[in-house]
């Protein structure tokens, strides 16, 4: 009987492996915009093979099975089989990363961009059904789950830093919006560079904290606490201390999240320049309230203030702008100023803890975040100089319905140079915010009655520019080898 159960248990487990193997083969046949999905798939395949080999070994070795009780047998088989559901779950990331599910043209340039800041890293970009962007570091999690020695060769196929960035599937073709990825890459950089060690903990606003702790204690004393639990031997001072302790722990957690989010925004600005700021407004304006905080995210108005400060630094002596805004035309300045004005109006965040967290994010905390991010990113940030050089030329091409993948640098010698994904998207935002009438005119369309059609065309032209730019860059790289 035990033998039958043993063999049946192993047989069923092998069925799971077989099914997983068939699905892996199916996914291997699909087309992906970069090598990362197949690298990741290869890891899943090898891990599945390790499990299957293990099952084959114990099945063909009766000496291992016979002495076992059913419970021991179950434990032996499940030692590795429990990883099968996890492997199946990982396949979900591959499913959304096919060419037709993703903004394919953007994937390689974004990987290239990431590697500029994080060499030896890889990111799997995929689309998912949520209207959100997200970042999931996987390497550490995988190394923890597959820590057994037998899986070590599989893990070696993965790069040191491996993460999944998810795009909203419904916005797959919206190239302009995808500048939001700068923030997600920022999460990766924040964690990889261990900025939490430098920026946390944040000093909590002591006065506000103690005032709230007192309010909690007095509410409890009035017998209005929801739990109804009061320790009879606790003095008011004890209760004050424990309320303060609880609040401090909660606030540290919230502030930890907020600082990471703000740092990721700062990275987004350093990587994508104004394009990240504009994409943020475009996205956030439709999905959340400007002054609404969550435990996981500070209110958008706080984030916008940090971004705007980073974009528009002033010269200490003259007070003149030395930031991106000096290259903005009037429409862009008006746009940004209106949004910053809207972000500064109204009541602060609701919720007592969030209000204290907001008070604790002082100018000095924001300054430290900006400074640490700036140090971490170094000289490879997107500069004002580059923005000033590129915008007029690239914008002119886009307005004339020409993808700005390359620009003429010397008319006499007939020389061109490649532009890059960040400049292309910034130029796209400039045209989108201030010159769509001209773009529509060159498409022979009336903008007022064809706004969405023109927006769609603009995004297609930008994606084409990014695609052509990447092909030319790779072509030239091969030539230089």
């Amino acid at each position, binding site marked *: 009987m035990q033998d039958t159960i043993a063999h049946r248990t192993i047989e069923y487990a092998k069925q799971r492996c077989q099914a997983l193997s068939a699905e892996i083969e199916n996914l291997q046949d699909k087309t992906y915009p970069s090598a990362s999905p197949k690298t990741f798939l290869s890891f899943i395949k090898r891990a599945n093979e390790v499990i299957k080999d293990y099952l084959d070994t114990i099945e063909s070795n009766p000496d291992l099975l016979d002495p076992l009780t059913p419970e021991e047998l179950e434990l032996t088989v499940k030692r590795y089989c429990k990883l099968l559901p996890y492997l199946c779950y990982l396949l979900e990331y591959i499913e959304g990363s096919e060419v037709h599910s993703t903004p394919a043209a953007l994937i390689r340039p974004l990987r290239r961009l990431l590697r500029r800041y994080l060499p030896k890293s890889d990111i799997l970009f995929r689309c998912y059904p949520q209207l959100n962007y997200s970042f999931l570091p996987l390497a550490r999690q995988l190394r923890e789950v597959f820590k057994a020695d037998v899986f070590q060769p599989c893990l070696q196929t993965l790069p040191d830093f491996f993460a999944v960035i998810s795009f909203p599937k419904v916005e797959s073709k919206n190239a302009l919006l995808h500048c939001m990825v700068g923030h997600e890459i920022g999460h990766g950089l924040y964690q990889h560079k261990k900025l939490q060690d430098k920026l946390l903990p944040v000093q909590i606003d002591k006065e506000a904290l103690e005032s709230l702790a007192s309010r909690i204690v007095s509410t409890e004393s009035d017998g209005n606490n929801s739990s109804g639990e009061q320790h009879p031997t606790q003095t008011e001072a004890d209760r004050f201390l424990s309320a303060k302790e609880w609040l401090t722990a909660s606030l540290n957690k919230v502030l930890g999240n907020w600082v990471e989010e703000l740092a990721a925004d700062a990275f987004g600005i350093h990587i994508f320049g104004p394009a990240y700021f504009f994409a943020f407004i475009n996205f956030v304006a439709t999905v959340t309230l400007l002054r609404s905080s969550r435990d996981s995210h500070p209110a958008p108005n706080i984030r916008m203030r940090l971004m705007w400060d980073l974009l528009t630094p002033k010269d200490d002596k003259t007070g003149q702008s030395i930031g991106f805004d000096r290259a903005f035309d009037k429409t862009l300045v008006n746009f940004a100023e209106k949004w910053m004005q809207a972000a500064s109006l109204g009541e602060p965040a609701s919720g007592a803890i969030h209000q204290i967290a907001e008070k604790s994010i002082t100018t000095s905390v924001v300054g430290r975040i900006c400074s640490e991010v700036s140090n971490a990113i170094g000289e490879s940030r997107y500069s004002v100089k580059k923005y000033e050089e590129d915008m007029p030329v690239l914008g002119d091409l886009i307005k004339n319905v*020409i993808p700005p993948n390359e620009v003429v640098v010397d008319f006499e010698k007939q020389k061109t140079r490649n532009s890059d994904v960040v400049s292309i998207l910034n130029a796209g935002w400039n045209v989108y915010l201030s010159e769509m009438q001209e773009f529509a005119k060159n498409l022979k369309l009336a903008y007022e009655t064809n706004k969405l059609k023109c927006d769609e065309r603009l995004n297609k032209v930008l994606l084409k520019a990014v695609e052509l730019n990447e092909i030319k860059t790779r*072509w030239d790289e091969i030539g230089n080898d």
Partner: protein
Amino acid sequence: MIKTADSLADLMFAKEKPTRERLVVTPILNWKGQVKKGSGSVDLRLGCSFRIPKRSQLTDFDPLLESSYERESVKTLNEKDGKPRSRQSDLYIGIGGSLVLHPRQFVLGNTLEWIHLPSDLAAYVVGRSSWGREGLVIATATGVHPGYSGILTLELTNLGEIPLKLYPGIAIAQLFVHTVDAPRSGATEHSIFLGSTEAEGGNPISEEDLFKISHFRDSETQNKNPSL
């Protein structure tokens, strides 16, 4: 007059002209190979996106059913059948991959290059003779009008006897450019293909013609139906 490759290069780098009035062919991956001195054309490469007719799901292509005049009824019919309306499926093959074009197979492809013609130039796309000798036809609708801006859709057909393996990125066509009479700014009226970024199909009959022909057909049908 057909422009030589040398003068095409001059037109692409005409500093004195505004962007709109410059010839643009981008990207040119290999200048010496694609814009050969003394030749009368620029070589164009095969792009990465393809559209393949869904033969097994269609009975025919009926331009009347593609018109906006008939669109509502088509939609209703398709909803009843639960069948998708699209006639073609998309296929993306990156550089380094390949597409096998079987004898008599027809596929829409596109040029890798984006073409922008100023108002004083028009162009023709012609297959490269070395591919023609293998049976490959790359375009049947070859004219590119002044003011056009976009990638060019190629109608790829294998008229030969053996399957052809096509690699995106290979030089597959030639663009002959010539001047036009009486150029004027904004010469091109709106075209659904203006600003094309991928191989696109379209209705070969104008909306106006479709409207009138549909009315002819309806009145014929009504006369033949004794109940009306």
